[in-house]
């Protein structure tokens, strides 16, 4: 059975000083989903969050919460809460008072506040720190308090604005895991903003890739990772290589493309293909085979360097047209020397055609 969305944005537009920040955002979020708005800085992702929270008024469009348009309602009337990027903990209150704030404002009974604050602090493993002030906490602890504070009133939707951005890598990984677990336990709908594709892939049920105030692609993490629709998504989400070539022919489950550096294969899509049409394909570094001998279908290039970063070997190869593609390998063994001419190929299934609508 199709459930109606808990949160829906329709045609949201916003500009600041004549510069369009959001150019018509349509988004629908199902109850209990972990949805991530992913994009580089300036793509409008934080503005979307602020518009949902009611902290920024859109120029046009609707914000529907459980089917009701709340676009004209102030933030205090909306059943959503926000975890701010800077945490925004009240410096003049203790941890306990911070977490209790929303309940006190609503005039909740003292004894109930007592138990609910205790539970909320326990939920984020901050029990025992109630008497401390935010200034006495570490970044990670502040993060936990901010989460407890925003969840205490059981919002329909929790908005999180790059909540892990200020934490170091190890703590970030741990918090990713904890946040996801918390979200699953509570069943609360999370709308999460980040520029970190790894974070988005690890935590989300759905990823919404934003670019220049528009939704570039949305779908399950696997979907966006394996079948990027645009070269931007391919590069941003999957760190894929993007190559261009002219369509030569289609044979079964493969399209043959020709570029200045050789020939390449790609997986055909449902759109019609014309011979000679200029196409863009995305292929990830780990799927590229490298050899000293040319094969029937391949492109050639020169090994530029090899570097071991992030537990992976990254080998940039300069193609004859001057562009660079990066091959990745697990481990640290690499048999090719810098400066050596190599031939690269991949299976048709590993390369996806992108930017198809834009080119048409």
């Amino acid at each position, binding site marked *: 059975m199709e459930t109606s969305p808990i949160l829906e944005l329709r045609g949201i537009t916003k500009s600041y000083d004549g510069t369009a920040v959001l150019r018509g955002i349509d988004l629908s979020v199902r109850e209990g989903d972990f949805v991530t708005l992913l994009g580089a800085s300036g793509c409008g992702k934080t503005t979307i969050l602020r518009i949902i*929270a*009611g*902290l920024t008024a859109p120029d046009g469009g609707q914000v529907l919460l459980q089917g009701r348009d709340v676009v004209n309602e*102030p*933030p*205090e009337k909306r059943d*959503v*809460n*926000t975890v*701010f990027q*800077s945490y*925004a*903990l*009240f*410096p*003049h209150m203790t941890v306990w008072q911070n977490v209790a*704030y*929303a309940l006190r*404002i*609503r005039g909740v009974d003292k004894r109930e506040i007592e138990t609910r604050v205790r539970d909320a602090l326990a939920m984020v493993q901050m029990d025992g720190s109630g008497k401390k002030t935010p200034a006495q906490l570490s970044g990670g602890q502040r993060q936990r308090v901010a989460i407890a*504070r*925003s969840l205490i*009133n059981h919002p329909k939707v929790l908005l999180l604005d790059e909540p892990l951005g200020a934490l170091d890598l190890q703590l970030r990984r741990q918090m990713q895991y904890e946040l996801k677990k918390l979200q699953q336990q509570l069943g609360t709908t999370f709308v999460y903003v980040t520029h970190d594709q790894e974070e988005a892939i690890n935590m989300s049920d759905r990823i919404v890739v934003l670019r220049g105030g528009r939704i570039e692609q949305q779908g399950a993490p696997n979907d966006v990772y394996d079948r990027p629709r645009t070269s931007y998504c391919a590069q941003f989400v999957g760190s894929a290589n993007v190559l261009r070539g002219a369509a030569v022919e289609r044979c079964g489950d493969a399209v043959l493309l020709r570029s200045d550096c050789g020939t390449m294969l790609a997986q055909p899509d449902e759109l019609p293909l014309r011979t000679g049409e200029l196409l863009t394909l995305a292929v990830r570094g780990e799927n590229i085979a490298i050899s000293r001998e040319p094969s029937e279908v391949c492109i050639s290039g020169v090994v530029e360097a090899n570097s071991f970063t992030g537990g992976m070997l990254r080998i940039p190869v300069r193609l004859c047209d001057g562009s660079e593609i990066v091959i990745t390998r697990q481990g640290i063994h690499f048999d090719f020397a810098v400066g050596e001419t190599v031939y690269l190929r991949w299976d048709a299934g590993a390369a996806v055609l992108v930017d198809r609508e834009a080119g048409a």
Partner: protein
Amino acid sequence: MRKEKWWLCVVPLYAFTLVFVLGPALYMVAVSFAQNTAGTGFRWAFTLENFARLRDPVYLRCFRESFRLALAATALNLLIGYPFGYCMGRLGARGKRIVMFLIMVPFWTSSLIRLYGWIILLQAKGALNSALIRLGLIDEPLKILYSYPAVLIGMVYALLPFMILAVYTSVEKMDWTLVEAARDLGASPARAFLTVTLRLTLPGLMSGVILTFVPSMGLFFIADILGGNKIVLVGSLIQDQMTRGGNQPFAAALALVLAVMTTLLLWLYRRLTGTSELEGMFG
């Protein structure tokens, strides 16, 4: 770090304070216990008579009057200065520069000359009265000049910039995300203001209160010029005893009591706000 270098910096500082601040203050304390000799000066003989004289109802009324006026001036300054400083803190960079400039402009003229300006404005045939009569709001000119309201206006006018700047400094430092967080957590704009903004700008507000209250206890020339000798404040009294009255020990006693009261107020301020520094004065 070498110790002797450190001392090189500190010694002149202490020397200056000793000679020009602590010395005169101690001298004043000493004089307040000395005996007045009719006519010219005083004798170094210990006496409490200068303080005993303060019990005279005339002087008690003078303290009461000063206190009342200072309180009223501070309250008015707060009512005008807080919203002003708050709005100023929320302006853009350009707006802030313009308002700051406008606040600073009066300081380019002597405060005495500006007070004479108020005489011209407030006198029976002055600009204010003619304007009000022409507007048909009053038939007879108001007798504001040389009265309590005139002194109050003068005080508020002279001290308002300090209140505004003290409030502005703390509003400037406000993290407005906190107000957004309060709204997000369910607080109405008024509730968010009371629980977050007001509480976080309290140090500025309190130092504004101190910065206006303390001087208004002693600003004798405003009362002299706009009050026309009808309102005698502690400040005027001290000045009078020092010069015309020729009773330096009594003037010193008055000044000492005023200083003690001021210090008590500063101590209260620290207790209430938990801050040890006045915002706007020391950043």
